[in-house]
């Protein structure tokens, strides 16, 4: 036996995001890699504008997430607080012997992995008001001088344990316990809507969340 029951298996019923109670409301859904993903909320142009001019947030809980443990070059240094791009994902160091792999990183050359995709919810927050939105529920310092793109911080996210990854200048990824999904969606929506933002689907999000392979300059 293995811990395969942790993983969303191909061919089964579509996987449902832990945020679905909130994020699927009014959404147009499509199936991607076995998950029901929000394509849009019916106004792709408005959603793109929101994330360009204010802030947009999207349920990205379907992003693969795994714990990597053991020794190895992929772990990185937690002291630096920076995620390392790996494939189409990031390796985010937690301790000298553990890292959180986010996105499609491919298989690490060494160490053991454990699938945490279902254990952790994820919300991407993008746009010029992204930092202000996060500041409404999170005390982590997101100034570029302190947390440049690819910065990664474990910390309290809306009073729950979680992680914050800065994917780009104006793009962040909140990662948190899946059981808090509905709560977290409510919190982010409350904060973002006060700043002129709205929830967005994957279509509006894609250009704003840079793939890790991209070069990203810091505004530090």
């Amino acid at each position, binding site marked *: 036996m*293995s811990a395969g029951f942790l993983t969303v298996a191909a061919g089964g019923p579509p996987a449902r995001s832990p945020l679905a*109670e909130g994020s699927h409301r009014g959404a147009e859904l499509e199936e991607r890699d076995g998950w029901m993903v929000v394509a849009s909320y019916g106004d792709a142009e408005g959603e793109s504008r929101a994330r360009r001019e204010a802030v947009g947030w999207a349920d990205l809980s379907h992003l693969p997430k795994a714990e990597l443990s053991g020794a190895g070059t992929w772990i990185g240094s937690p002291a630096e607080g920076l995620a390392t791009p790996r494939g189409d994902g990031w390796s985010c160091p937690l301790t000298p012997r553990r890292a959180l792999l986010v996105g499609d990183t491919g298989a690490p050359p060494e160490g053991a992995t454990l699938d945490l*995709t279902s254990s952790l919810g994820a919300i991407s927050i993008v746009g010029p008001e992204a930092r202000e939105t996060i*500041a409404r529920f999170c005390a982590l310092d997101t100034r570029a001088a302190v947390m440049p793109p690819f910065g990664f911080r474990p910390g309290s996210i809306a009073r729950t344990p979680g992680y914050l990854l800065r994917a780009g200048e104006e793009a962040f990824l909140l990662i948190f316990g899946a059981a808090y999904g509905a709560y977290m969606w409510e919190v982010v929506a409350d904060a973002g809507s006060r700043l002129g933002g709205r929830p967005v689907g994957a279509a509006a999000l894609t250009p704003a969340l840079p793939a890790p392979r991209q070069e990203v300059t810091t505004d530090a």
Partner: protein
Amino acid sequence: MSRLAATPGERIDRSRPLGFSFDGKPVTGYEGDTIVSALYADGRRVFSRSFKYHRPRGELCGCGQCANSLVDVDGSPGVRACGEPARAGMTVTHLNAWPSLEHDVMSATDRFGGRFTQVGFYYKTFIRPRRLWPVYEKVLRRAAGLGRLRERQDEREWETEYRRRHCDVLVIGGGVAGLAAAVRAAELGADVVLCDEDVEPGGALLFEGGQERARELADQARAAGVEVLTRAAAIGTFDDLVPVVQGSVLHQVRAARTIVAAGAIQQPLVFGDNDLPGIMLSGGARRLGALYGVAPGKAAVVATVDDRGLDDALALVAMGVEVRAVADLRPEVPGGPAARLREAGVEVLGGLTPVRGHGRRALEAVTVARPRGGGERRIDCDLLAVSAGAAPALSLALQGGARAAYDGARAAFRLTDLPAGMFAAGAAAGFDDRESAERSGLLAGAEAAASLGRHHPRLREEQVRLGGERPEPLVATPPAWAGEGGKAFVDLDEDVTVKDVKQAVAEGFESLELSKRYTTVTMGPSQGRFSQLPSARLIAAETGLDLETVGLTTARPPWTSVPLGVLAGRPFEAAKRSPVHARHRELGASVRWAGDWMRAYDYGDAEAETRAVHEAAGIIDVSTLGKLIVRGPEAGELLDRLYPNRISNLAPGRIRYGVLLTDAARITDDGTICRLDEETFYVTTTSSGAGAVEQWFTWWLADWGLDATVTDVTQGLAAINVAGPRVREVLARVTDLDVGKEAFPYLDAKQAKVGGVECLLLRIGFVGELGYEIHCAGAHGQALWDALADAGAELGVRPFGLEPQRVLRLEKQHIIVGQDTDSESTPYVAAMPWIVKLDKEQEFIGRWALEQRRGEAPPLELVGFRCADGKVPAEGSVVLGDDGTPAGEVTSARFSAKVDAVIGMARVPNELAADGARISISDGGQRIEAVVTKEPFFDPEGEVLRG
């Protein structure tokens, strides 16, 4: 509406009138007015009544810091009318007077209160007879307070936002010093936030003729990138956090450096009837004229101890107020402003101070005299503008760890030591005049930036220069009080008089801290801004101590009063929800908190749900169970050291029950351990214990240095328990796995697809019936639930909630850790000695303590019981010993339809822990008789469970 001629610096926009009501009468003001300035222009001088004596009170400070003009605005009491901008359509009413502001019944306490209003009266009177306190309390509560909150509120009044803001430098105070500091620090590259309580930064510059400079500095600050927060009060300093309240936004500012530039607070003078409407601070009078175009009076007397009062007198003259005299306490009034006053025809009287205000409802005249008597003069006036020196606003600095000492030359306390990371500028640093205050701000900004590695090339030069230019102010120390007769108030907020403080000292409350608690001096809404220095002075005079010895009271937040709604934050609760939560809602579940989870308590009929489990099958969402993956070459060794039984010899695909113990062998949690493969174990814990168990495992793992990892997957897995006699029929419809007794025996685990979902099936049963606990990725949880529910629909399967589960497990005498165990429960007490394997070769947590008790009968033992008369004892009820004294405790009790009796579990004395023993339970005075049953009430042999 009477206004002065327009001036360049005024804040009102005369082209934009606005209307609101005060006590039901219409008032017209202008955009930019405060409530008080609009009411002043309308001819009103009284806005509320005082706290204790219900004396009419007029304006004092003119800037939102005093409690003299507290009003109710649109149903919210406690609003400071002198700082609150007037808004069109607002409804303003007075506070603390009935039936009207003009005629207040409770003002009788002022005239006839006598001994009933002296300090300490409540403490001494209402402590006896004790039984009457509820009556006293009712009456006192009705009489006390400053306004009434609405009793019903359908919606949250405060749409509060929390905003976290990190910065390099926080500047508290937007006067000339604060602005200069912010500009300098920002120009050196620091990320700067400045907060100021006023509607625009500039401080005293705005009404002392420096408005152009103020706006220039503010523009410079913004251009340099400073985030300027206006109408934003810093309410405290908490280590690295300064909360700043701005309307309904609470900025939680975390700054690497803090510059305190909060300015100084002009002080009142203490003399008889010093609270009459018309007596106000000279700075406040000047603000009214300069910012709002309102004449604070027609005929004025100015009383001062420093040049500030003289400057203010000149300003009053300039705005057209007839200043009949200036009483300056300094015998030799310095030239400059005094000469200009004399040139303007104002009589300047040296060595005099007010000793009595006159007037019934408002000031009509003032008597000035020498403090020790003599030289009395009565001068008719409707305005007495006072300046008893300026006390630097130190509270925020002191809260942050600064220290202060009394400065006789300034007749005020000043900062002496600042904690690391804190800087001071302006009046807080002892620089009172405009030019030196600005330079001190520039220097503080440069020093703060330099401490962050952003150096200013001429820092040392500026330090030297400023160090040499701190001018000694010419201030006379105001008397602790002056004159006789009338009520001389030391604290206008709380109506504390000179007599009160004297009496407190006479009764032994000689320290400022004790006197404060006895008299409530400094405890009002203005947080001692206008009463701390006068009360310290009075105690010094009464005790003969010097002011340095008397000191200040401990500075505590909030420095500015703040609605509780602002602190409450957004109305969201961090609830954990199972992946199946939405389905439970749709099924009509009654959802309740269970630890930090929201869980289905029942689906409307707990009894029918229980019956369904016994007669067909039931499904329950147990996703809340803690779940850990323990993996690595030494994972088995780790678990052997953590559990009192053997784990490492568990075969892959097998399950074992385990309890976790403290060093003292007390049970802290329980659950199952399933071995998935040689190096991987799947551990479940109680729902509420997951976090603690993970920490416990991780802590010991770090200590022992074993080659294993522990990962909490609680929130990643859904878990559904399906149990009941027809469970195999249900599963046969959704899985190809052979779930028969031989192929899938009790305590076995298997992986298989159920309803198309990859699952781990555990053959265990908390509820006693034949059951399977099915675990899968949370993202498939709802699909799995639906598959099981659909498959079982025709078979009578129904969902069941927590309450039926509690009944079912009680029938089986399965314990709930924390409910049936307490902090003293060992496995021996919990009737599970079989789980302790002292012959195990490994050391394990709790072993030593268990060895000490080996072979001993525990003093208490957990047993089942059945009640004879059908009464259900409350959990926590007392089990009585033979002599009728408390000897044990009921831990669980329910009525079980299956058993057709009230059943329960209790910790009872060892001698009663025997089948058939009779126990008496005392439940709130009611006696319930019960019989001990050590065997499970349902399926005692375990045939059903293992079947």
